[in-house]
């Protein structure tokens, strides 16, 4: 209850400051005034938290005091400009829309879906891999440390570069985290920005010439985009970027730009690169639209001058709101764009670009494999393929005929952004559309225009309603549940019966993560602040405890003696390692036969392996190649997801063999049986590696590839480099408690060891 009051107080003062400040701008409509308030909200919050964080005073009291000061300043400014009475203008009852029953059904469906999302956000815990791995740990580190810390993370995709990502979104997250001092609202941090993006879509549609009804359709189409629905209960950043870019675009398409609009543009586009590095790619596109628009409205000379003013405003805003992160990374890592500067760019997958590119919006990569429906990074929705893209072309052609080059260019943004990101991320088509998201409001604004202008309005509205319903029916059931609707049903069943408590990391997610969840609940009950060492990929956020009091450290793989010395030097209380070998784990052997147990998904009649460094494997069969190479102290482990059926391999004579297995197309837990021939030595003395086909010229994780595109062989990430950690736990003299957790699709079983000789005194409870 106290947390809710603190939350309402903090958000209330920021909102008051933003609403009062927005009255000072000369804006045409109530929607624009509300959108201006939303931008000011983001600007005030980002600016104040950035300043406090840089000074090491990012805590609730200081933040609340800063928002009180901001609200007083906003009220004073509104009073001085004589506009204070307009503060309630955006909330006056709207005039009758006359939308008709189809629009009403669409609005009710979208409203219901978001009510469901909000409900899930309140009663369930975060469960998006990216959020648990780095988004939330960074936000939690700010909240715990009171400064803009670079936290240690669990190794994710074999690196920890994520800790250096710009943190404006994590500053905004503090409005949800600090009042509660825990993650109660952590999963809903993007919810208001989804609504803000819809408002920006509405304003953009009005700017393109829509009446209210068409603009409402545009906003509803955007809100029903499955990625937006999914991310509204996920602490990622794509929807936040979408809000900032689209709202800046909506204001900058009014010519000539007055000072107020330049300020709003500076805040919105200035803050965006501090939320996500890739947001910077949209700014030149947006500025090009502004330049075209200004030149067509004001003439070449005045237009270029106006566009230059907009560019300067965006650059100035970028320096104020985002500059800190790039200067910090230059200071710490020697390059302002770190880590983007060290990530090697993938070779172009021309098959994806040329063969699949034209139909990717239709495929949407959500039906592949069948068990995988929309989640927080997939699903542009039927409305993007069927309405936004054709409407962009239709509007653009019409605007070009009228000489409105800037509006024509703005409407084409979704197509241009799609083409750009398809080329940029040609090997990751399954996650492509969330990068296009900031450009989608322009497409849906064009769709709103088309809905109004068409001669077959009822027909097109029915199509729009069908698209919205289809997206919502697919996206909403398992928002935030990752891939397991069964877990959601179980949680709701318990909730309805009143039998269970809403435990942290207890209810949601893939059921195969139960052992991880046991670990997290155990850490929640550990008193005091513990230092936890991880040595490979783990979900970092839950390790911090429910109030982020624990600290996570990453220990690089090293020699056993050095590892023990580091445990002591760093005061490590717990060690979390993967346990991939041994009784009841994924790998079993009786000395001559080796059994691997893997989890995975299929793609119908195709087979997919998603594992680093293999980008994709897709054939009608799986080829598993294994080698037996003598190596010391190596036990087998396989820390990847892969997919196959039960195979039994009788290898050819010799040290190396290749076999091709049939693929049935069913979903299985894989049990791969590798049987060593009698003449080879016992498997314990050998390195055993599974290799898979990499397709050179195609495919992200989940899309089919013609067989003739198959390129080279690659070894999967097995055995992992620090495999010695998988040895007999008894070797670790400091380790006492083997809680025998096991069973995760991310990194094998998780074992939590308590370090006895750690400096902390309080004895933790026994693990469940």
């Amino acid at each position, binding site marked *: 209850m106290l947390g809710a009051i603190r939350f309402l107080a903090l958000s209330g003062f920021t909102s008051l400051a933003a609403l009062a400040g927005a009255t000072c701008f000369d804006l045409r409509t109530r929607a624009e005034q509300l959108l201006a308030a939303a931008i000011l909200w983001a600007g005030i919050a980002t600016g104040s938290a950035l300043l406090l964080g840089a000074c090491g005073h990012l805590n609730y009291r200081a933040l609340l005091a800063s928002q009180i000061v901001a609200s007083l300043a906003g009220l004073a400014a509104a009073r001085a400009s004589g506009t204070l009475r307009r503060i309630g203008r955006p909330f006056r009852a709207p005039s009758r829309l006359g939308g008709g029953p189809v629009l009403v059904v669409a609005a009710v469906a979208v409203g219901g879906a978001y009510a469901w999302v909000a409900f899930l956000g309140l009663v369930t815990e975060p469960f998006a891999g990216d959020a648990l791995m780095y988004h939330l740990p960074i936000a939690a580190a700010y909240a715990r440390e009171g400064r803009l810390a670079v936290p240690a993370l669990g190794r994710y995709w074999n690196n920890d570069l994520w800790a250096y990502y710009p943190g404006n979104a994590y500053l905004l997250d503090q409005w949800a985290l600090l009042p509660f001092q825990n993650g109660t609202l952590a999963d809903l941090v993007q919810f208001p920005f989804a609504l803000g993006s819809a408002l920006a879509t509405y304003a953009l549609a009005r700017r393109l010439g829509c009446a209210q009804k068409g603009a409402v359709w545009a906003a509803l189409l955007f809100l029903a985009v499955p990625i937006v629905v999914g991310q509204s209960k996920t602490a990622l950043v794509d929807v936040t970027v979408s809000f900032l870019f689209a709202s800046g675009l909506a204001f900058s398409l009014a010519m000539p730009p007055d000072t107020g609009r330049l300020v709003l543009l500076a805040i919105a586009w200035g803050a965006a690169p501090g939320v996500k590095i890739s947001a910077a790619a949209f700014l030149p596109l947006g500025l090009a639209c502004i330049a075209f628009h200004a030149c067509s409205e004001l003439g070449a000379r005045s237009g270029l001058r106006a566009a230059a003013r907009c560019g300067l405003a965006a650059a100035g805003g970028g320096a104020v709101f985002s500059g800190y992160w790039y200067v910090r990374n230059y200071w710490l890592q020697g390059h302002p764009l770190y880590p983007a500067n060290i990530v090697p760019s993938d070779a172009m997958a021309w098959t994806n670009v040329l063969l699949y590119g034209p139909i990717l919006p239709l*495929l949407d990569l959500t039906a592949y494999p069948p068990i995988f429906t929309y989640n927080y990074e997939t699903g542009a929705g039927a409305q993007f*393929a069927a309405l936004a893209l054709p409407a962009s072309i239709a509007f653009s052609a019409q605007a070009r005929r009228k000489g409105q080059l800037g509006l024509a260019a703005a409407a084409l943004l979704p197509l241009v952004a799609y083409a750009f990101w398809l080329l940029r991320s040609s090997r990751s088509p399954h996650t492509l559309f969330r990068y296009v998201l900031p450009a989608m409001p322009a497409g849906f604004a064009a769709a709103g225009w088309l809905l109004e202008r068409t*001669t*077959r309005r009822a027909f097109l509205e029915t199509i729009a309603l069908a*698209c919205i319903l289809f997206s919502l029916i697919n996206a909403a059931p398992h928002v935030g549940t990752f891939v397991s609707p069964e877990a959601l049903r179980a949680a709701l069943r318990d909730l309805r019966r009143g039998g269970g408590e809403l435990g942290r990391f207890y209810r949601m997610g893939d059921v195969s993560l139960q052992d991880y969840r046991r670990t997290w609940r155990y850490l929640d009950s550990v008193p005091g602040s513990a230092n936890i060492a991880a040595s490979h990929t783990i979900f970092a956020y839950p390790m911090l405890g429910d109030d982020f009091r624990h600290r996570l450290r990453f220990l690089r793989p090293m020699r056993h003696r050095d590892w023990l010395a580091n445990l002591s030097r760093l005061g490590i209380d717990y060690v979390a390692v993967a346990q991939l070998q041994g009784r009841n784990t994924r790998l079993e052997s009786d000395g001559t036969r080796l059994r691997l147990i893997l989890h995975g998904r299929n793609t119908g009649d195709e087979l997919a392996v998603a594992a680093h460094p293999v980008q994709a494997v897709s054939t009608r069969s799986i080829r598993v190649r294994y080698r037996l190479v003598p190596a010391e102290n190596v036990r087998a482990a396989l820390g990847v997801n892969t997919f196959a059926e039960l195979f039994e391999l009788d290898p050819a004579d010799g040290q190396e063999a290749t076999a091709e297995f049939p693929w049935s197309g069913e979903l299985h837990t894989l049990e791969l049986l590798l049987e060593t021939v009698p003449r080879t030595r016992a498997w314990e003395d050998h390195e055993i590696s599974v290799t898979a086909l990499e397709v050179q010229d195609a495919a992200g994780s989940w899309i089919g590839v013609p067989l003739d595109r198959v390129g080279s062989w690659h070894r999967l990430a097995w055995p992992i480099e620090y495999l010695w950690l998988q040895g007999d736990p008894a070797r670790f003299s400091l380790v006492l408690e083997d809680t025998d957790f096991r069973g995760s699709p991310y990194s094998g079983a998780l074992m939590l060891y308590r370090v006895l000789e750690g400096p902390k005194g309080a004895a933790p409870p026994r693990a469940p």
Partner: protein
Amino acid sequence: MLRRREPPDPWPWLCAVLAAAYFAVHLGMLGRSFVEWGGILTALVFGR
């Protein structure tokens, strides 16, 4: 009296074709979702 003939408007038909193609590709998923909604509503209302 002559009636003014409306110019052809191909866009709704293009949208319809694209929507139909999208639905066709994803129809299996839609079926799954209905099943999921059924399970969810059952769990919410009846607690089982």
